[in-house]
């Protein structure tokens, strides 16, 4: 379906002075002269065998091209998730346990800014501050750990803000539960109540959200990959759009969707394992 709507790849693949007969020959060799439903049938048949077609532009299997770029993207996404989790959980817990304090207000204001700022703009601001002005960190490319800091940091800001709000809200909610009152009344220290009883129960629903964020990060990282010239799947996808390289576009969409769905499934399984209440229902 996608193949025919938004443009003719021939116009971009062939030099403008190519003869019509040459264009037709190229079209035939790529199978683009057949009726749409035949193309789609062939696509489904091949896709089921793991063959998503050959990139018009690179001349290599599209799936292989995308999978080659996958590690770079995963590196970025996993670092982002780790950064935001490590920072968000303590900040959220402290904010919730000292409600109304300066720390609480600062974390709320910070998280408001974090969820309101466009991630790609944060990336640009980071480049301006840390690369252009201070010249501390490289602004583009992949390689050393220093290359990873700015892209992961700018991508993490939004999730960090989101996670802080969620941990804080979850903690406040759990703290009103009866079992917290029970724990307090039997003389458990406040620290133990917060970290052992409350935090544990807060983090269970949190697993779902963190997992879903990981999937959407993979798609959302495209902008960050563009800003920092990070050689991940997203950049490949953008390049493919530029030259209407449909096999690569489709391969990207399928790989991203597959990872997203796999992570979600894993999270659901993990959730049941973590929360015995669900296991014992029914």
């Amino acid at each position, binding site marked *: 379906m996608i193949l025919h709507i938004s443009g003719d790849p021939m116009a971009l693949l062939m030099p403008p002075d190519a003869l019509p007969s040459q264009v037709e020959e190229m079209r035939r060799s790529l199978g683009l002269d057949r009726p749409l439903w035949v193309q789609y049938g062939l696509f489904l048949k091949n896709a089921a065998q793991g063959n998503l077609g050959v990139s018009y532009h690179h001349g290599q299997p599209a799936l292989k091209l995308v999978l080659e770029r996958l590690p770079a993207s995963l590196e970025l996404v996993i670092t982002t998730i780790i950064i935001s989790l490590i920072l968000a959980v303590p900040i959220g817990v402290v904010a919730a346990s000292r409600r*109304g304090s300066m720390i609480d207000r600062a974390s709320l204001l910070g998280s408001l800014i974090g969820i309101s*700022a*466009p991630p790609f703009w944060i990336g640009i*601001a980071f480049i301006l501050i840390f690369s252009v002005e201070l010249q501390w960190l490289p602004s583009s490319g992949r390689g050393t750990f220093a290359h990873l800091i700015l892209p992961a940091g700018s991508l993490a800001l939004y999730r960090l803000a989101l996670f802080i709000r969620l941990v804080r809200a979850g903690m*406040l909610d759990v703290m009103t539960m009866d079992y917290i009152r029970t724990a307090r009344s039997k003389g458990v220290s406040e620290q133990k109540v917060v970290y052992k009883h409350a935090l544990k129960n807060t983090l269970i629903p949190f697993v779902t959200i963190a997992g879903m964020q990981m999937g*959407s990060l993979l798609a959302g990282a495209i902008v960050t990959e563009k800003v920092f010239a990070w050689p991940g799947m997203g950049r490949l996808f953008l390049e493919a759009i530029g030259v209407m390289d449909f096999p690569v576009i489709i391969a990207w969409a399928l790989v991203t969707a597959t990872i997203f769905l796999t992570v979600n499934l894993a999270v659901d399984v993990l959730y049941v394992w973590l929360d015995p209440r669900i296991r014992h229902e029914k």
Partner: protein
Amino acid sequence: MSVRTASMNGLSETPYAPPKARFWGFEYVPAERQLLHSFLSNQLVLVACVMLLFLVFCAIFAFWIAPVDPLEQTLRARLRPPIWEERGLSPFYLGTDRLGRDVLSNIIYGLRISLMVGFFSVGISLLIGLALGLTAGYSRGFWETAIMRAVDVQLSLPLIMVALCFMVIFGQGLGKMIIVLAIAGWAEYARTVRGAVLSIREKEYVEAAHALGFGPWTIMVKYLLINAITPVLILSAVQVPRVIMLEATLSFLGLGVPVTTPSIGLAIARGYQVLFSGSWWASIFPGLALMFLVACINIVADWLRDALEPRSREQV
């Protein structure tokens, strides 16, 4: 009454404490007055609302407010810094971009595009979602299954990915963008509306309405729809900033509106190209403006959710 200590509660899910009885002189406080009270007692929300109105005003009257035409290229004034810097040039208060276009005017017209996209595409997905959600909730059986399976499929994919793929298929354009974002967003409405409908369709008074011989339309609109309004309102308030952000992202990637449209995302993308030559203003100011707009909407949306649904846990 701890309204003051929770002055940040536009951001939190602080349950709204209804005013003490003696404050109003009677026990029962109507919902609208509670809402008004919580609104007036929350300075942050008040400020955000005023700011939001100001931005909407600017967007509507962009033609009179913007100092120059945002697309006009003044070639003698290319890459001029903001007015307070040495090379600044009046009337380009926030500087110009590489082709000599005014950054401030671009921002004002860009906010207009952002608000338009946010308003219309959320409106359209609301209508689609409301219709399908009501249908699914009211008529069980085949239609419910069909609609809810479609919802599941769409919600099982990241929003940004759905929007990206649609934009690749349909190509650039403001109208297309609004439609695509509307299609990408309807599923959440359908799920919310169906949930609200299911929770009351078995109630006695709905049964009574059936028994009295009211037709399905009357029941749907008079009983079921009314009950779905609060969650739909809350969802819309959360969706608008999300859609605005998505529009900016897609435009930044060059997949959103055409380059001749003064969009914030495009302005940031153009500013990014001249970032390394020291022209920071062309990308930083549009982003700040967008952040400001989204923050204002987020504050109001959070407050609305807290005030209307005190028990609600934060949704992502």
